[in-house]
């Protein structure tokens, strides 16, 4: 997922869980059935899991712009020069 997709997924997760909780409580209270409330909430949690956790394409609409490989070759990484041989001769 890209950054925008992550933000969208997190917001969606929070809103969906809150809605599931409210619906579950209202229906459970109205039907005077604790079991109904728990079942609706569990269903809501499973639904939210299916929507927000996998990498759906809708969460990847703003893909990151990685640097072009040809551009990278023009600016090579600096090389580390070995200094250990000088130190050994001074100790002796």
């Amino acid at each position, binding site marked *: 997922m890209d950054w925008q997709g*992550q933000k969208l997924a997190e917001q969606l997760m929070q809103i969906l869980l809150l809605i599931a909780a409210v619906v579950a409580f209202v229906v459970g209270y109205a039907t005077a059935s*604790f079991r109904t409330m728990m079942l609706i909430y569990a269903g809501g949690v499973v639904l939210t899991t299916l929507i*927000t956790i996998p990498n759906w394409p809708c969460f990847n609409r703003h893909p990151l712009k990685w640097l072009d490989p040809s551009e990278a070759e023009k600016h090579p990484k600096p090389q580390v020069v070995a200094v250990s041989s000088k130190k050994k001769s001074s100790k002796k």
Partner: protein
Amino acid sequence: MHSFGYRANALLTFAVTILAFICAIASFSDNFSNQTPSAQIQILNINWFQKQPHGNDEVSLTLNITADLQSLFTWNTKQVFAFVAAEYETSKNALNQVSLWDAIIPEKEHAKFWIQISNKYRFIDQGHNLRGKDFNLTLHWHVMPKTGKMFADKIVMSGYRLPNTYR
């Protein structure tokens, strides 16, 4: 939100926290229920009334208990525990409570009942103070919820008296 595991963890934590809130609100909604329980207890017979070898009084009663506890049940009630206690005062103790009978009522349908039994638990005094004693029979109940706070209350019925001599 960087990986499956991160999102799954966030979702699970949030879901369980909200579940705790739902259960707390469900328990709170119990405060708004209208409770009108009623009960009557009759002592049909005093089976025997003796002094035990150790010097303590013991009495055996046959009780007729009628109660309607249906209004105590809410959507958040798992069971109601009801018990009958004999309460009286002696010179040694300001309040003696002796449990005579109890029952667990798992469903609303069973909460309106009529039962005639001898006392389930023995009515033994600490001493020999029971002759001619006036006592109350109190029906206590504990409403045990599925989640949250347990409520307890009672109905006090007074006017019972034990005989003046052993039988």
